[in-house]
């Protein structure tokens, strides 16, 4: 632990940004590959 730091809020921001990006890109892929409805 680093004394005086507010314990990794920077790391949490990085992880949240990356997680949101992964979620958005995955949903884009799912939308792209969605099978066409029959009829």
């Amino acid at each position: 632990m680093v004394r005086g730091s507010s314990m990794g809020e920077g790391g949490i921001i990085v992880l949240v940004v990356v997680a949101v990006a992964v979620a958005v890109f995955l949903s884009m892929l799912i939308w792209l590959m969605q099978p066409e409805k029959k009829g």
Partner: protein
Amino acid sequence: MKHDGVAQEDAALFEPLIRTGRGFYITVAVLLAIIALGVYAYLRQLIYGLGVTGMNRPLFWGIYITNFVFFIGLSHAGTLVSAILRIVKAEWRRPFTRAAEAVTVFSLPFGAGSIILDLGRPDRMLNTILYGRFQSAIMWDVTCISLYMLSSIFYFYLALIPDIAVCRDRLDVGSFRARLYRFLALGWTGTERQYHRLDRLMDIMAVWLTMLVVIVHTVVAWIFGMTIVPGWHSAFIGPYFLAGAIFSGVGAVIIATVILRRVYHLEEYIKPVHINAMSLFLLSLSLLWFYLTFVEYFTTFYGNEPAHMAVFNAKFSQEFSPLFWAMVVCCFVIPVVILGNPRTRTITGAVVVSIFVNIGMWLERCIVIIPSMARPRMGGIGSYTPTWVEWAITIACFASFILLYVLFTKLFPVVAVWEMHEARQRSIPEAVERVRSYMPGATASSLPREE
């Protein structure tokens, strides 16, 4: 309707995936030997610590950080050439968008990785996540570069999907590659709706990536600019870094496309007109770079602040002057002399200039980073000479970048085949219609006649 996006004339683009000559194996062997030397050098650094490098107090950043800025800059090429030209519907982009995107995707890991190389204890990289504070510009960098890397890989992959599906359906390759293609194609069937959606996603990603390029390189520059170190503390450093990044990136794309053109016989796809357009773009960037460099240094000179002038003099007339003037020759004199003359603005000329531009831009990163630390504000003079360990690791990074690129060209088509197909089918009538829509007096008779 269903089509797999391949015209018969594009079959040649799949040849490198099927046939492999001796040159490929020799290239890979040489690159692996260079990488092995780099790995050995890195292991020494890991065991004995940063003492094996030339870094010292106050020069605690050397060529690893130079490589960091350089590779991140190089990575902007793909986005610029592919995304921006896509947004403005420049049709001539099509044969080399993939080559450009590959430069982005394969150079980014070495940009981000250079930070880890610069740490005597690489495990401390985790501290940015565990204890990182967002007040620090380094955390902005970690955030932006992570996002940029993810976005670039996704954009690159999106544009690859239709071609991977063609490889899956048409190529008779070993079971590993067949499984790889099947997995990566994600069940792509090539329906009209899929192509329509792919186009929409590519448009969205092109805009997003263009924004990210500006943000990422500005934030990279802020690692320096947000300190009060003489020579770094300037509002101007963000745009200066960005222009330089695009400059070196375009040079890298020219080198990559010309090599691919020659090795894989892509003369039908990458024509002199393409290289000429890129050369003129490179020339414009050279002029822009000179203007920005002049403004930056003239402002410092005119201000005449002692701390800033110490750095200025170190670059202009003292120990860093050979690097500084070599940079000016590589980034301005050579491009203007060769590309400014239509007779020398040939494919060979473009490659020669691009190589010099990249050497010059690497020197520029050195010139920005190192002299400022050699003349600290509190006084004294520092000196720095990179050791063989740093050179070996640096050369290994470049070799690894080339190796990834070479392996990529053996697994996937280096020209976006579906984009070429799309261009033949749709782009010509669309371009005619577009010109007609804004050209006063254009009538149906002014359109080209169908044969």
